[in-house]
């Protein structure tokens, strides 16, 4: 089955350069310092940020000039089509946790909080492809909600190559498993700096700039959507609390 039909539509009816619908909400929970809920198509992800606080566990892990960023990626057992036996601790989750930590560390100003720890917890409630991307985006929103200083948003997007030459953006689970190549990139959108880049399967090296460009474009568009939402959210809160001017 082709990833792109003869009419130029993908399996879920999108065009090759169309992102899935993004819905997000900041400050959804009372316990964490910062929290966010993000939906990218059918992928639903929750992010919670605790910190900065004193290093829990062994004091020897504390770094004298920076904060430790601790990430945990967990998938609910009912999030996938086949029941997932281990929510966390299996190889794939451990790998995802490490990549998430590396992506967020590229942007958090850790030198402002020596001897401290920032915990980022992610829970995937429904997985439909692009789990890593949704997690990175949700984590960024949660960090913003927690008020932790960031250099920039960290936005992630995935891209693929369909029918051998059509670049596809924002890959869903079905497209991932159908054997197409998959390129995931986590980027700081304004400066264009790439934090994490991962690719699977293979395609000809001539296609790389095209697919990478598609993914970076996707990141920029997602950044605009999320930034718009954050500004609206802050405006709302500020108006209620009285510190934002209603005309700006």
């Amino acid at each position, binding site marked *: 089955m082709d990833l792109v039909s003869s009419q130029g539509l993908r399996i879920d009816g999108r065009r090759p350069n169309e992102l899935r619908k993004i819905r997000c909400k900041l400050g959804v929970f009372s*316990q964490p310092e910062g929290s966010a809920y993000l939906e990218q198509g059918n992928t639903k992800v929750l992010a919670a940020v605790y910190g900065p606080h004193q290093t829990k566990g062994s004091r020897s892990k504390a770094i004298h000039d920076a904060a430790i960023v601790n990430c945990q990626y967990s998938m609910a*057992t009912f*999030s996938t089509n086949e029941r997932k036996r281990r929510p966390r601790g299996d190889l794939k989750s451990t790998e995802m946790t490490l990549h998430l930590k590396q992506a967020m560390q590229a942007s958090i100003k850790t030198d402002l909080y020596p001897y401290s720890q920032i915990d980022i917890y992610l829970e995937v409630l429904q997985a439909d492809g692009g789990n890593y991307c949704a997690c990175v985006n949700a984590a960024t929103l949660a960090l913003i909600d927690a008020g932790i200083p960031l250099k920039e948003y960290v936005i992630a997007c995935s891209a693929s190559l369909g029918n051998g030459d059509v670049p596809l953006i924002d890959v869903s689970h079905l497209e991932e498993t159908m054997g197409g190549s998959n390129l995931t990139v986590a980027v700081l959108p304004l400066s264009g700096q790439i934090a994490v880049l991962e690719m699977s399967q293979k395609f000809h090296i001539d296609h790389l700039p095209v697919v990478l460009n598609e993914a970076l474009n996707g990141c920029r568009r997602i950044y605009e959507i999320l930034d718009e939402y954050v500004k609206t959210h802050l405006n709302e809160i500020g108006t209620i609390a009285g510190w934002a001017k209603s005309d700006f």
Partner: protein
Amino acid sequence: MDHYKSVHPLKYYQDYLIHDLRPDGRSISKFRNIAMNVDSITTANGSAVVRVGNTCVVCGIKAELGPPRTEEPENGFLLINVDLPSLCSSQFRPGPPSDKAQVLTAFVNNIALQCGIIELKSLCIQADKLVWTLYCDIICINYDGAVADACFTSLIGALLSVSLPKVEYNNETNVISVNEETKISLNVLCKPIATSFAIFNEKTILVDPCEEEELLSSGMFCIVISDNELCSIHKPGGNVLEEEQIKKCISKAKERTVLIYELIQATTFKQKLL
């Protein structure tokens, strides 16, 4: 104001309780609002999200096919697990399930199986060969007290929203055929609902405590009621109580159970219409 609260938390609370009030504005016998939503997670066979005040809990049910136990060839399996991840509160550290999570899991499992929430025989497709196993995973995503209340409500909501495909087992050929088109829902026989209480001193019992109140209390207890019958009273140690106080709490729990039933009815009915 916040300094007084951090330095003398108990006295801070007692100053409020004298006037029959709590810092969040409720009286000592007022319950928090409950909101519920079912069937929002499409990868699960049934799901429910319940919010009791700030406490938020998601229950997802996955159904799998498998052989039954040889001692009980006509019974399916109902396996409930409650997870309190580090996401929901800073008091839970990452790692193996905490004591609280294990106690809650055992509590919910015991009540669900003893009350007979579902007739396990109804999960049987072919005796001794094929039965349904329902894995109910309850995840707390924000912990602000009264988790047991939210857990039971979400479990019932999720069970009511489960739709299983029709499965047939051919005895001669041993072939399993699954018909995705026809959907069967579960027959939920009883609906146990929990109500949590926190004991502050001999005279004050707080209804529906939030996390701060749980930590400051000198004892906690939980009453589970199903269809006007008392299912369980769970009082793990703590301050002593008199019989009269327990009776009063049981009647409060009964009132709340009726309200929660109306909520479940309204939510699941709305889903059926959609």
